């Protein structure tokens, strides 16, 4: 096996098969998602008050009522009880047997006006369930197909002029998928890039570097490290994806909005042609930082400097979302460090012209190649520099290096 692959495998193994990677690298994001989703469901379920609702009907609409369709999980059904007069309903309310009661006056069908009486704030779920109950009864003599259409409402699909992209009003969250995947990619890039930088600094600190470079060439070493680092990042993302896909598949039938989730081909193209070279670029930058600094803490400060432009598009979300094809958006899409997040943010909102994807990708690839060269040079000059930071001008200065 080529020594490059030994280095790559060593780096991969060293970071992936550790407790820290399993706890922080792998489980952190799924756990955060799980906790967030759990909290949402908890809040929703706490929001549901299943104490019955009452009604007093003077309009005759609810003489022979039909039931409303069962609410979707995690909502729980709220029973609806008829009362002959308002006094009985009020007594039941005061006794706590019902949480509110509705009064439908005789002219309800002509005015659409009704009255609700409650002692405590009426939550949205019982209110919506009562309106569904009313709708079901208003439409009970209508053709079921039409009734169903009226109840479910219209689905507005915004389509791009070339017909390649659709965004449905019901699947609006698909807009967020590229942004979320971009953010996940960047988190993975920086966390694994951090491992790479730390590994290089550690090799300098514990003097392993001197032993290693008498066995492999600096080019093999740096290439092996970058391959190992990217493999760690990809493993991390694949496992995150598995953690996300499993609950989606598990709850697909019970949670309607999950059925509409889809990742468009443009997103996949961006992940492959923009995010991947961006990953290589960041890894090479991390290796260069590791070779330049003398201790890990110093490296962290430098990482802050390169992470700032990466997150700039996130800070400009409002501008980018309101006008995803503005010159600013295009400019940020072409600048290597802002391109990854900008492109994915725009992906959810607009059709990206092919030339922009191609140009952004080409710039990123060229920058990544140049950064690998730069990292290699910094590595060769700085690999045995102990206790003293390498200056940028030393990297560019004309000198014979290993």
């Amino acid at each position, binding site marked *: 096996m080529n020594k490059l692959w*030994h280095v790559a495998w060593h780096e991969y193994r*060293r970071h992936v098969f550790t407790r820290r990677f399993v706890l922080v690298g792998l489980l952190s994001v799924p756990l955060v998602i799980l906790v967030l989703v759990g909290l949402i469901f908890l809040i929703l379920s706490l929001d549901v008050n299943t104490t019955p609702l009452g009604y007093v009907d003077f309009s005759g609409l609810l003489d022979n009522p039909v039931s409303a369709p069962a609410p979707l999980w995690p909502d729980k059904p709220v029973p609806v009880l008829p009362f002959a007069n308002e006094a009985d309903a009020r007594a039941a309310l005061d006794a706590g047997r019902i949480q509110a009661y509705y009064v439908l006056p005789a002219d309800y069908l002509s005015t659409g006006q009704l009255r609700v009486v409650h002692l405590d704030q009426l939550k949205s779920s019982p209110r919506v369930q009562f309106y569904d109950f009313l709708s079901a009864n208003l439409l009970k003599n209508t053709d079921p197909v039409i009734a169903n259409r009226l109840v479910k409402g219209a689905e507005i699909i915004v389509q791009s002029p070339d017909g390649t992209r659709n965004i449905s009003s019901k699947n609006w969250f698909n807009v967020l998928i590229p942004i979320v995947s971009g953010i996940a990619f960047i988190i993975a890039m920086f966390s694994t890039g951090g491992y790479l930088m730390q590994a290089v600094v550690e090799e300098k600190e514990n*003097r392993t570097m001197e032993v290693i470079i008498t066995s492999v060439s600096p080019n093999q070493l740096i290439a092996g490290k970058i391959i190992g680092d990217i493999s760690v990042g990809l493993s991390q993302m694949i496992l995150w994806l598995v953690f996300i896909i499993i609950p989606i598949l598990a709850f697909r039938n019970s949670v309607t909005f999950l059925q509409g989730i889809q990742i468009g081909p443009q997103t996949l193209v961006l992940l492959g042609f923009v995010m991947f070279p961006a990953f290589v670029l960041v890894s090479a930058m991390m290796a260069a930082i590791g070779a330049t600094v003398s201790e890990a803490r110093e490296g962290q400060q430098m990482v802050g400097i390169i992470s700032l432009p990466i997150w700039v598009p996130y800070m400009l979300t409002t501008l980018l979302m309101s006008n995803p094809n503005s010159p600013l958006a295009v400019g940020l899409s072409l600048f290597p460090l802002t391109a990854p997040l900008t492109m994915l943010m725009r992906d959810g909102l607009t059709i990206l012209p092919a030339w922009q994807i191609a140009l952004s990708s080409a710039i990123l690839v060229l920058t990544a190649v140049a950064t690998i060269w730069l990292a290699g040079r910094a590595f060769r000059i700085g690999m*045995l520099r102990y206790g003293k930071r390498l200056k940028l001008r030393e990297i560019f200065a004309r000198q014979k290096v290993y």
Partner: protein
Amino acid sequence: MPAVDISHISKSFGPVKAVDDVSFSVEKGELFGLLGPNGAGKTTSLRVMLDIFKPEAGSVGILGGPMNEAKKDRIGYMPEERGLYQDIPLDRCLAYLGSLKGLNPVEVKQRSAAYLERFDLAAYKSKKVKELSKGMQQKAQVIATLLHQPELLIVDEPFGGLDPVNTQTVKDLLLEQHRKGVTIILCSHQMHQVEELCDRIVLIDHGKVMLYGALHDIRHQFSGHSVTVRTGDLITTLPGVERIEPINGTVKLHLSPGTAPQDILRALVARNINLEQFEISMPTLDEIFIRVVQGREVVA
């Protein structure tokens, strides 16, 4: 053809000339000493030799020509600053370092098992390197250097941090490798160790070669500056003697420059001193080292 041929190499770091026109060669199968005080340029010379640094001038021939990637597998290098991965188990660390020297996993396993046994480290192979004592880590570093059975062994201060028992073990190991025909460059400032092990040396100070050649010849070159005399008579002063030093029943007479031992012998006989012993002192490498480094005498 020498195993290592260093010819007029120079290397500077900014304004500091770390190595200045250094030349020496190491014959195949030789146990060669590279000496010098701290900061003399020894490690820089080794790094130039190993192609870690490019020299500004001069050339390096190693194992029959310039250094290349394939030759790295034939060289074992133990730097002065020990370097092992601290957060992984010892056996995994050795396996990785062995694999970078072209060994397959079976070879690494077999060879490291034998060395670990020999160095009493077998019980610690699953421990993380950082959990081992400094001496154990030092021994592990020796194993990592020898694992691939190098033809050329370059060891920088191999006895640093070792207790006498382990110092002897490493010394025996170096002699064993020497007997097997391995070329060894021993870089050290521990003169007595070099004196005991090496046939030829080069002494570098301030980046320049101060001494180079066979140890025996160098000692001869430096002999004659003192004589050892055993006598029952009292010697207080003698012409041509700068200092008289009593040592264990003998007297060491330090001669002034330009005085030959024969002059002293003639003076002693002329004074009717009863001589039981008269011997031209052969200086130790320590003494030569101090004289060269303090006096900056160049004898090459």
